[in-house]
């Protein structure tokens, strides 16, 4: 027993000694000069690698692409500091010839790399030529497919000659999450093989340089450049935080705890329940919306993506029937606890899109008719957004807006009214039969659907998938979910699935152009069954009318209003055909803590950028953030 006592005494001593040391999560940095941000990439396997042009070798959103990189243009997913479009390294918008075979870029003067070398057209030409010469760099393939040659006509002008007409070539250099970054020629020239060079520490064009990092990849700390005025973002003033730390936040519960302890200023994402906990327990924490639904709607559209090449889903009647069996209110509750922004059409309800697409198409949707084979029904219910708001008001009270415009912004407009009768008629029209409350396919097999969900990494989508499976089950379809985890992208690309909860629609957000995803929906890119499908047409759907729309957009300028009209044509076609069932925007519960910093973007007062911190666009946040103390 004496042994035990001494063991216990020793344990207590160690504990006491350890606790006696200073608390805090960062050593030697003033907390009021440091912004601590969650990096959703988690632990970086290969922390000492900063060559972002090599695929996958190191981290990206460790602050590297937000604070250290730069390129010609940025498109903001929200309003932007000075409009949606921002000329960063370029002095002006891209200049195309009339055939869209040549793009000229005028560069900004007086921009310097962090080692004091001036940025010039030579860097751009070097970057492009390296990608032309080297296979396997992150942007090698798109450059090799598009660029015939590149040249600098003077120190601040670059001319790209394209292999074929492309009115959207500038998109490659326009940051929406990320874009092709410019390499420092004077560093890479001496480095040898660009695929095997670690670029550590990085020589930056952005306003920050690397201060320190954890060799185990848990944190990266960036420091404001003393010559930050010689970077492109200096036009908007001095960035507030002197240091920015990007850290691995751990499991969702833990991120909530870290912010409650004021050790994590920006949580990238957490569960809806985690968000509610923060809103309840911390006076200083808030999301994109000040109150419910808190989350930032990313310009991404989660949907039920069918594998339209399977016989099961070849008929649009079947796809429509399945849509009419979904009660979106229950899906919204199950996935986001109501904090979702729903969309009936194939466009994310975020950024500029509600004004350009959702509002103008509302009356068309109300009149839209569906032929069930027995009768014509009007499936659209414009009041679903309001119904969700009313349902939530019962428990949330004043937090829930009553103004129809605000409701539309926060919860979305209408959706398809659940209509089991019409669904039954549609399925029967497609040759399906119901016996003893179970549906059978035209060839007599039980109608079964496995819905692929990603699991841990996208919990909200998993929850939506489970609810949809349940609703289909209740209608007599043998539906269940399968958690695919890491194999999701393989199975999605290979077409090895029946349905996925995921997205094949992503847009710029702030800019209404749809080419970001729509161009890849052209039938020329649809792979035959069994072959890998390039992004993003995971549903492998093609339609002659869609091809016509896409081809016209390709010949239309980026800012031409005619392109928006064509975009609305796409929406109508997609409603008639229902290739995927659009659900809602991907709402991200980015939570910001005001204890040390203020000036974060928000939905009402200053929607100047997307707060979701793994977006490279969040660098604009730095110039607005101010220390509280």
């Amino acid at each position: 027993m004496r042994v035990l006592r001494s063991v216990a005494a020793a344990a207590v001593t160690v504990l006491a000694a350890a606790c006696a040391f200073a608390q805090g999560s960062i050593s030697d940095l003033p907390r009021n000069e440091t912004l601590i941000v969650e990096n959703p990439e988690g632990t970086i396997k290969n922390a000492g690698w900063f060559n972002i042009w090599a695929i996958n070798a190191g981290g990206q959103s460790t602050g590297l692409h937000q604070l250290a990189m730069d390129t010609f243009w940025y498109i903001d997913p929200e309003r932007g500091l000075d409009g949606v479009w921002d000329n960063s390294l370029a002095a002006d918008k891209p200049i195309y010839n009339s055939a869209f075979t040549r793009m000229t870029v005028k560069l900004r003067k007086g921009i310097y790399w962090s080692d004091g070398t001036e940025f010039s057209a030579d860097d751009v030409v070097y970057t492009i030529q390296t990608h032309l010469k080297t296979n396997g760099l992150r942007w090698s393939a798109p450059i090799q497919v598009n660029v015939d040659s590149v040249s600098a006509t003077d120190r601040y002008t670059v001319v790209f000659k394209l292999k074929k007409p492309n009115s959207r070539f500038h998109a490659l250099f326009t940051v929406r999450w990320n874009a092709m970054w410019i390499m420092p020629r004077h560093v890479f020239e001496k480095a040898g093989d660009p695929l095997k060079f670690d670029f550590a520490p990085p020589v930056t064009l952005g306003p920050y340089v690397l201060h320190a990092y954890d060799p185990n990849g848990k944190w990266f700390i960036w420091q404001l450049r003393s010559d930050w005025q010689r970077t492109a973002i200096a036009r908007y003033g001095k960035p507030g935080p002197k240091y920015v730390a990007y850290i691995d936040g751990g499991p969702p519960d833990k991120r909530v705890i870290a912010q409650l302890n004021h050790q994590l200023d920006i949580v990238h994402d957490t569960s809806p329940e985690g968000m509610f906990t923060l809103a309840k327990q911390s006076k200083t924490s808030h999301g994109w919306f000040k109150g419910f639904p808190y989350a930032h709607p990313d310009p991404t559209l989660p949907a039920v993506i069918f594998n339209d090449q399977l016989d099961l889903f070849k008929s649009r009647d079947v796809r429509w029937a399945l849509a009419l069996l979904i009660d979106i209110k229950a899906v919204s509750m199950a996935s986001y606890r109501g904090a979702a922004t729903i969309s009936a059409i194939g466009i994310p309800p975020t950024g500029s899109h509600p004004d350009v697409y959702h509002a103008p198409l509302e009356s068309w949707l109300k009149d839209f008719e569906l032929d069930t084979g027995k009768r014509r029904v009007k499936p659209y219910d414009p009041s679903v957004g309001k119904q969700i708001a009313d349902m939530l008001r019962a428990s949330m009270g004043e937090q829930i807006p009553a103004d129809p415009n605000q409701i539309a912004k926060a919860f979305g407009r209408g959706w398809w009214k659940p209509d089991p009768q019409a669904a039954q008629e549609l399925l029967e029209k497609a040759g399906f039969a119901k016996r003893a409350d179970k549906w059978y396919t035209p060839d007599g097999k039980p109608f079964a659907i496995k819905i692929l969900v990603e699991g841990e990494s996208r919990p909200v989508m998993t929850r939506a998938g489970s609810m949809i499976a349940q609703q289909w089950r209740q209608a007599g379809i043998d539906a269940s979910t399968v958690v695919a985890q890491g194999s999701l992208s393989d199975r999605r690309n290979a077409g090895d699935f029946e349905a996925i909860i995921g997205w094949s629609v992503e847009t710029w957000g702030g800019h209404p152009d749809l080419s970001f995803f729509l161009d890849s929906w052209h039938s020329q890119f649809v792979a035959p069954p069994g072959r890998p499908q390039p992004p993003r047409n995971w549903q492998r759907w093609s339609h002659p009318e869609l091809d016509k729309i896409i081809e016209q957009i390709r010949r239309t300028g980026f800012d031409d209003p005619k392109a928006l009209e064509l975009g609305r044509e796409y929406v109508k076609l997609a409603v008639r055909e229902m290739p995927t069932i659009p659900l809602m925007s991907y709402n991200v519960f980015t939570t910001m803590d005001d204890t040390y910093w203020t000036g974060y973007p928000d939905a009402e007062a200053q929607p100047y950028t997307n707060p979701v911190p793994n977006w490279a666009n969040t660098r604009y946040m730095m110039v607005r953030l101010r220390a509280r103390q």
Partner: protein
Amino acid sequence: MKGYSVYLLGRLGQFVLVVFIGINIAFIVTHATPIDPVEQSIAAATQFGSTSPEAIALMRQSLSELYGLSGTRWEQYSVFWKRVAAGDFGPSLSAFPTPVSALIGRALPWTVGLLAVSTLIAWVLGNLLGGLAGYYRDSKLLRFAGVLAMAFHPIPYYIVAFVLLIVFGYVWPVLPISGGYMMNMKPAFELPFIASLVQHSILPALSLILVGLGTWFMGMRSLVSNIVTEDYVTYAELAGVDQRRILVSYVMRNALAPQVTGLAMSIGGMFTGAIITEQVFGYPGIGTLLVSAVHAGDYSLVLGITSVSIVAVSVAVLLVDLLYPLLDPRVRTR
């Protein structure tokens, strides 16, 4: 002595065979993954940006060449053994071109440090308490300790770890809950760093000890209670030998052999890391590496970690077999 050396040779042969078969199975298993590292890289590179479909096809081709995945399985198999002979596992496919050995080398010290210490502490405490509980079977306190250990034992480790984290990280926030040491610190052999290191390892270690304790306790308790009824113990008691001496030299010593086996196996088995510990406490180590490698279809890295673990466990089993006759005089080599 000749008998022992023949046994030794045979046993060494068995060791080599087991390692060889084990690594071969690991090769087959890891390469059977349906996750294609090239597709993962493409997904990572194109997930948020807009990349034209032709470009993707080109990217797929050049990455396969770059990663050296174009050969047949047999070619990959022979390349693998050539690399092992040269002392490495080639480049990682999810952190190309960084060598697998560099990634493992960076994570392994953390895993070994945390797990070796906590396993040893749990082993010593568990055996001590278990021995006492088995010997003094009528002690109310120790009986209660037994039920307590049993109650603690089946609580899922994840829950234990998270409850500790909430208690010491939030309710009574006295201990750090993330990382291996404080942010912005440079690893160095200095007091502040070592203090930070110890501080950060308390919760992970405590969680592992709490959960590990039960197994050793239960094992030792049942071993000792069996031995106590042996004749020689009764004789010793009748002969008036000091109780403490009976407990230590007569009982515990004889009960120790299987426990030492268990310890060796645990130490050998720790080379795949403590996945949940690392995830909950954000502690660096090999488990996180393994999970992310599995998700990314990086079979080079999975195979590297698996091989290290196979060798470690095999060595542990070998040592146990070679030392067993010395620990337990009743078992003689045949």
